[in-house]
């Protein structure tokens, strides 16, 4: 069965680019435009195998979203990748402390992105 990835980004073009890359590689994709929408989808039963989230979004940002996800018992160990233009070490440390699994700086290279996914996804 195909693994599911939740993509959270306020940019429609970014969500489309990530979704295109993932769909080509055989993943199922669920999309959310910000942290609040993502939490809503997760609370209503969506259980992705991986979450890819932007950092700076209107409403709930990526770090707050990670904290919310880590509070959910069924998603406590789900890998979460940040995909953001932010590259400062301070922010990366904040993401790590919140529970992020990894940090990818935009623009992402699709081939490299898929390699990272394979590393962090449970077999």
């Amino acid at each position, binding site marked *: 069965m195909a693994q599911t990835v939740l993509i959270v*980004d306020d*940019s429609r*073009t*970014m969500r489309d*680019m990530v979704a*295109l*890359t993932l769909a080509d590689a055989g993943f199922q994709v669920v999309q959310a435009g910000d942290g609040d929408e993502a939490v809503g989808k997760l609370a209503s039963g969506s259980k992705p195998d991986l979450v890819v989230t932007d*950092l*700076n979004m209107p409403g709930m940002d990526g770090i707050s979203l990670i904290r919310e996800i880590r509070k959910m018992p069924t998603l406590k160990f789900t890998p979460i990748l940040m995909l*953001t*233009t*932010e*590259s*400062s070490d301070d922010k*990366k440390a904040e*993401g*790590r402390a919140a529970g*992020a*699994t*990894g*940090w*990818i*700086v*935009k*623009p*992402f*290279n*699709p*081939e*490299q992105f898929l390699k*990272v996914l394979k*590393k*962090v996804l449970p077999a």
Partner: protein
Amino acid sequence: MEQKAAAEATLRQQITQLEQSNRSWEAFAAHAIPLMPILTRQIEAVIAQTERAALDLTGKIRSISERARRQAADMSRPAGSGRAVEQVQADAEELAADVSRIIMAMQFQDITKQKLEHVAQPLAQMKTYMESLLANPASPELSKALNLLEEVERSYTMETERAAMAHALHGHAHAGAPAQATSEEEEQSVTLF
């Protein structure tokens, strides 16, 4: 005598207000003038990036189109007279690499959007500040509230933005930034925790 004293007091008050007003405008100019080259560099970076993305996309579309023509020609030839299977496979691999490159180039929209937002935000702050200055130029609180450069720096998320700001302010990139921070590709990195 009392009238003269009252007139002098009014005059002193007006001079104080004018001095305060002058200080507020000077404070505004002191913040706004260094901000201009920063915003200009940010806009120039966006122009360069959109041009680069457009060129990238055009190049890759041309390459895909040429490959599609070659493959169509191969299919129209009798079996065995076309190009070797290895060449067709190599074409398919190059095609996949072209699509990857297109996906990377297409992300310029998100990146340039953020850069332009970081231009629009300080412009909006400057507008608000100028409106306050015009409404009450003698307010001593105004010049204290102005923090444009710090707020611009805080809003930045990309190393290229921070480097461009350092370059505009000091003529050199800040420590840790790429010497020629013009390509977002240079920033691409993956960190696994």
